């Protein structure tokens, strides 16, 4: 079935006219109809619009458009509900945006469309990207396709689940503290966070402006490289985007990793790490060595401070970014006698508990008398964390770690204890603080139940090519990426 294909496979068949974009899109829509009642990866999707885009892609191909010019021509792709798609709803998994419809496309979305992709659907997420389980969505939770009593991860839970369940060919998500890599690990697909500044944030509703990045979820590493090339690049609309040339990431997938050096941080392989996850990562490290990679122990000494640092900085930035949701220019509104009352009531009614928790925490750490002790101090620890990585990258080409300490946990298991939820991000958070790139890919499964385990590779700033080269070589020497969940429709 065309919905089960990768980008590479589908575009090859489209080019050979073995399948039409219409048929591929219909197959995705059929799969959504079959399984999304259970999985709930989508908040909404516009089937008629998707098919109209597909028909336009088929016309274009009939008129000579090629995949050399438009690498995603005819490929159905869905996006996280935090990215603006012109004419489509934008809710960020929250009630506070009401019936908001985007007046423009995010740059990353514009680039997908220019590459010929069929962009449709609003994928479920933790509200305003705050969460690690997609349990914080105002539109209901998303279930892990491998075990529907478990979470898919978050905040890009819908983006990961939709790929794992073959509802679409690929998706876009966002990653501020691990929100692409962690759900990719828990759902058994590939998820990449680019170096900060690699992909424009124009049209991405901001959570933490110095940490957010948009990135792809795909079924394999080659597709990930294809997507990354499409969405990357400097953009006038985002003054934090970097004018670094965009290489052909697929050309980096040479298959040869002999002599490359990879570091295994000793601080990551400690207590709290599930024994099955440890075993899978150890086996992956051995596999890398058999491919000619040298793996050596390294130290990232400030690892233990990363969670505290992140949970000061991200909420602080969020408290500023979410001040705009005030019921005046857009979104839902609760009336008040004066503007102050209107703001307080609108925000009190419109934000969910996790968002309120983080805004208030962020307000506190920025407030007079506490700003130096918390926010500035956390920014200094952030420097130490970044320096740990830059020092390590003088010796190694990439760093390998487990993506998460455990496989997917049960729905409701951590939702009562916010701190427990925060601590589960321990392996992914430092990457955002340091601004480096990271990717998660499948490296095995737990025994019973069968749940995916993710291997994380971290690369130096703008080191995506090296990171993808190693990821690809590992992937191609295993068949984890070809194992799919059985979803009883």
């Amino acid at each position, binding site marked *: 079935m065309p919905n089960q294909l990768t980008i590479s496979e589908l575009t090859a068949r489209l080019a050979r006219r073995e399948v039409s974009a219409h048929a591929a899109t219909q197959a995705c829509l059929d799969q959504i109809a079959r399984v999304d009642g259970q999985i709930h990866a989508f908040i909404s999707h516009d089937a008629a619009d998707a098919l109209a885009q597909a028909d336009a892609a088929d016309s274009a191909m009939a008129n000579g458009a090629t995949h050399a010019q438009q690498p995603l021509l005819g490929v159905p792709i869905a996006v996280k509900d935090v990215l603006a798609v012109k004419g489509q709803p934008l809710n960020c998994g929250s009630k506070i945006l009401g019936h908001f419809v985007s007046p423009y496309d995010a740059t990353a979305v514009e680039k997908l469309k220019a590459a010929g992709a069929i962009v449709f659907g609003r994928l479920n997420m933790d509200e305003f990207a705050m969460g690690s389980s997609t349990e914080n969505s105002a539109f209901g939770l998303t279930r892990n396709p491998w075990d529907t009593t478990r979470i898919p991860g978050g905040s890009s839970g819908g983006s990961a689940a939709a790929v794992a369940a073959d509802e679409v060919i690929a998706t876009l998500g966002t990653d501020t503290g691990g929100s692409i890599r962690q759900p990719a690990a828990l759902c058994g697909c590939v998820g990449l966070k680019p170096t900060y500044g690699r992909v424009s944030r124009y049209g991405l509703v901001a959570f933490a402006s110095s940490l957010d990045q948009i990135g792809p979820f795909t079924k394999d590493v080659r597709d990930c490289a294809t997507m990354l090339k499409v969405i990357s690049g400097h953009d006038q609309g985002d003054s*934090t985007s970097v004018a670094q040339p965009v290489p052909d990431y697929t050309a980096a997938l040479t298959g040869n990793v002999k002599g490359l050096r990879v570091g295994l941080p000793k601080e990551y392989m400690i207590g709290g790490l599930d024994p099955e996850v440890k075993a899978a990562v150890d086996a992956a490290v051995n596999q890398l060595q058999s491919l000619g990679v040298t793996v050596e122990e390294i130290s990232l000494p400030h690892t233990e401070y990363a969670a505290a640092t992140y949970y000061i900085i991200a909420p602080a930035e969020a408290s500023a970014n979410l001040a705009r949701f005030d019921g005046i220019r857009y979104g*839902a509104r609760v009336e008040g006698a004066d503007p102050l009352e209107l703001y307080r009531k609108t925000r009190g009614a419109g934000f969910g508990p996790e968002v309120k928790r983080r805004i208030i925490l962020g307000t506190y750490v920025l407030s007079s008398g506490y700003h130096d002790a918390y926010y500035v101090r956390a920014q200094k620890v952030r420097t130490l964390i*970044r320096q740990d990585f830059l020092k390590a990258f003088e010796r190694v080409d990439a760093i390998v770690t487990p993506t998460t300490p455990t496989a997917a946990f049960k729905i409701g298991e951590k939702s009562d204890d916010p701190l427990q939820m925060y601590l589960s991000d321990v392996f992914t958070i430092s990457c955002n603080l340091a601004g480096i790139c990271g990717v998660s890919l499948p490296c095995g499964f737990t025994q019973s139940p069968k749940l995916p385990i993710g291997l994380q590779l971290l690369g130096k700033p703008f080191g995506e090519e090296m990171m993808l080269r190693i990821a690809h070589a590992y992937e191609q020497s295993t068949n984890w990426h070809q194992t799919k969940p059985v979803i009883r429709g």
Partner: protein
Amino acid sequence: MAASDFNVKYMAHLARIQLSAEEETKLGDQLSHILSFMEQLKTLDVSRVEPTAHAGPTVNVTRADETRPSLPHDEALRNAPKKANGLFVVPKIVE
């Protein structure tokens, strides 16, 4: 500056978020607990460390002072909860 200093009522006021009494109590407890966890950062010597506000080197970005197309008026007002005469409508601010 201990976690017990945490005044959830005042913080909610600064954040312009109305909380129910129940929310106040629950959030107050949760955030005190979380802030205790943050205390560990005080054990580090950061006296000779510069803060990092952005992961990469940042330069101020400007553009030429030229008029460019921007979001049309009606598009900008399309999502407004209350509008009139091409304006956003708000409760009275000044007596």
